[in-house]
């Protein structure tokens, strides 16, 4: 049996898959019985995960710890006659206990089964709790539909990159938001403007993974929240409504950030439970309990996804978006399609945006602010404490424009505040943006452009920047109330 003294110097090489098969095997046996050495390997893994978060090329996507060895396994290994050794390693990996983060085999069955889903409908009940006294503040019931394109049988033979198209519809008493891959009339299909593989993989994970069958990969990849510690699924059985179901439970605990990070910016701990049908392995129910990031014992939100129905034909028109009466949406999709504004209105909007941009470029806040309406803000019902006053918003932007100080952070916090205080973003639901159509505010308009790479970055190259202005109609013209952008996804 290997001792710690002999094991320690080899841990790094072991983690890097640089040891011979037999050495790795004996070391793995040692690790199974030695928490101290296992912790060292785990700390190497955590460092790797952290570094992957910061990969500027965005290609070293955060992989689950389970997949890491396989990503590194080279084809040459197999070709040089070590196929048997590789298989043995694989067998040991699967068999030996003490591998942290390894998915339960049974949950892999659920993921596999969900690949056969073509359409899904479910009802989601979100209950929000007050941060201070834990009382229930709001309940939101949403009916959801998702349709994946292309069909399930085609997905089996097509490469993953093709699985980008989907239609989605969420309806509740605040309105309806839809995303339709076929109707680009009201929204911009982001995946068509920048068909980078990274983005496509994210869409794939979001739909197949997060919405239907949440997996660690699904949580980790789209958010790149790589410092979340995700426990393996715990499996047992449970009776729900007289049915016996498989139950999988796990926790997602973001690592506490002790440096100067505002409480509102910390990631929240989550408990997840997924119930699956024992026969079909389809997901039957999902429950997510989200806690306060700063006080992990305080429950903030419970989301229950239930009443799943699979592979039934969606009702006609469920993926079509009907804007509220009087709302006008300017569309600039990749084909330069359809506009519901008059040429005069378009010209006015263009002028306002140009004006604001010239102020931004020169650091002249007066010019910048001349076309803004900082006072426009709606507090969302369940987050009153995030409301920012117009004066605060103005001051924040002034700091950014005049000093261009720490641009990234200021921007980030600003957008965070704005996203909560105005519902204007609800107009746009390209992939990744949620929110509901602000039926209470039909005077709002969202404009999406991609023309700002040139001045944000002189060597913009083939980067696709998406900038979203939200404007509000005022007598005689328009005022900007919100401005946000996405960082580029390169086509590399």
């Amino acid at each position, binding site marked *: 049996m290997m001792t710690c003294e002999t094991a320690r110097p080899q841990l790094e090489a072991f983690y890097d898959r640089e040891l011979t098969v037999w050495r790795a095997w004996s070391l793995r046996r040692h690790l199974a019985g030695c928490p101290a050495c296992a912790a060292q390997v785990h700390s190497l893994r955590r460092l790797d995960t*952290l570094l992957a*978060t910061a990969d*500027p*090329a965005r290609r070293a996507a955060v992989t689950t710890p389970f997949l890491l060895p396989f990503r590194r396994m080279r084809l040459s290994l197999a070709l040089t006659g070590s196929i048997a050794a590789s298989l043995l390693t694989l067998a040991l990996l699967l068999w030996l206990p003490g591998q942290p983060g390894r998915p339960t085999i049974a949950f892999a069955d659920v993921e596999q089964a969900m690949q056969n889903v073509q359409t899904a409908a479910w009802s989601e009940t979100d209950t929000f709790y007050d941060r201070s006294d834990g009382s229930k503040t709001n309940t939101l019931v949403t009916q959801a539909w998702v349709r994946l394109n292309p069909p399930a049988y085609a997905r089996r033979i097509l490469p993953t990159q093709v699985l980008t198209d989907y239609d989605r519809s969420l309806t509740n008493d605040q309105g309806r938001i839809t995303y339709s891959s076929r109707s680009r009339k009201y929204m911009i299909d982001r995946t068509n403007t920048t068909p980078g593989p990274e983005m496509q993989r994210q869409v794939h994970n979001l739909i197949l993974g997060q919405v239907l069958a949440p997996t660690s990969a699904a949580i980790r990849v789209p*958010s790149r929240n790589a410092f979340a510690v995700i426990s393996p699924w715990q499996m047992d059985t449970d009776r729900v409504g007289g049915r016996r179901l498989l139950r999988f439970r796990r926790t997602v605990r973001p690592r506490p950030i002790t440096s100067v990070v505002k409480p509102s910016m910390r*990631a929240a701990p989550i408990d997840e439970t997924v119930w699956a049908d024992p026969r079909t392995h389809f997901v039957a129910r999902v429950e997510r309990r989200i806690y306060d990031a700063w006080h992990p014992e305080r429950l903030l939100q419970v989301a229950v996804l239930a009443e799943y129905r699979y592979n039934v034909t969606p009702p006609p028109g469920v993926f079509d978006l009907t804007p509220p009466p009087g709302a006008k949406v300017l569309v600039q999709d990749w084909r330069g399609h359809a506009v519901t504004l008059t040429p005069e209105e378009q010209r006015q909007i263009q002028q306002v945006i140009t004006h604001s941009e010239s102020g931004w470029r020169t650091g002249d806040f007066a010019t910048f602010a001349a076309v803004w309406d900082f006072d426009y803000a709606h507090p969302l019902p369940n987050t009153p404490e995030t409301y920012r006053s117009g004066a605060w918003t103005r001051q924040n932007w002034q700091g950014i424009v005049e000093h261009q100080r720490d*641009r990234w952070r200021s921007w980030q916090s600003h957008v965070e505040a704005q996203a909560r205080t105005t519902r204007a973003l609800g107009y746009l639901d390209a992939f990744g943006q949620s929110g509901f159509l602000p039926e209470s505010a039909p005077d709002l308009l969202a404009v999406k452009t991609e023309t700002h790479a040139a001045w944000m970055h002189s060597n913009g190259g083939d980067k696709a920047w998406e900038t979203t202005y939200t404007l509000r109609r005022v007598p005689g013209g328009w005022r900007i109330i919100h401005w946000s952008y996405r*960082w580029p996804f390169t086509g*590399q």
Partner: protein
Amino acid sequence: MQTDQRHRFDRLWRRARPRLWRLAARLAGDPDRADDLLQEACLRAWQSFASFRHEASAYTWLYRITLNVAAQDRARRTLDAVSLDAPGAFVLTADPTHSPESLAVEADLIPRIWAALNRLPEDQRTTLILHVYESLKYREIADLLHIPLGTVMSRLHTARRRLQEELHDDL
């Protein structure tokens, strides 16, 4: 003959470019520098393409050129290498699992990680990037940098130890 050579180079460059771009972005710590570095690397590669004897694989040869260009570029630039435009993707959503909060935390974290990486000595930093981001094996790094295998291991070990100390709060 010249045209033929140009075509061969074009073909090679087109194939290798995505990989080299990623390498350049990682070495520079900033995707926006990658295009500049790559342009310089391309120029140098073309200039010496005629004398390239295929002793190493074409990829290795281009890798080396890109490594050199990036190293010289870093030496030229000031130490303030952390871009304010931290690389990151901005996705706004009401979904708690990738909420603005978690992204904001990340935006704060990424510059710190890069600051820590940039404080490493150049040789350790390059070795670590090649290993962690490019997923090169010890032997491949040793061949690429013309250093013994043991040196690769010790550089990696030291670099990791230092990063673990510096990023202790985030681990």
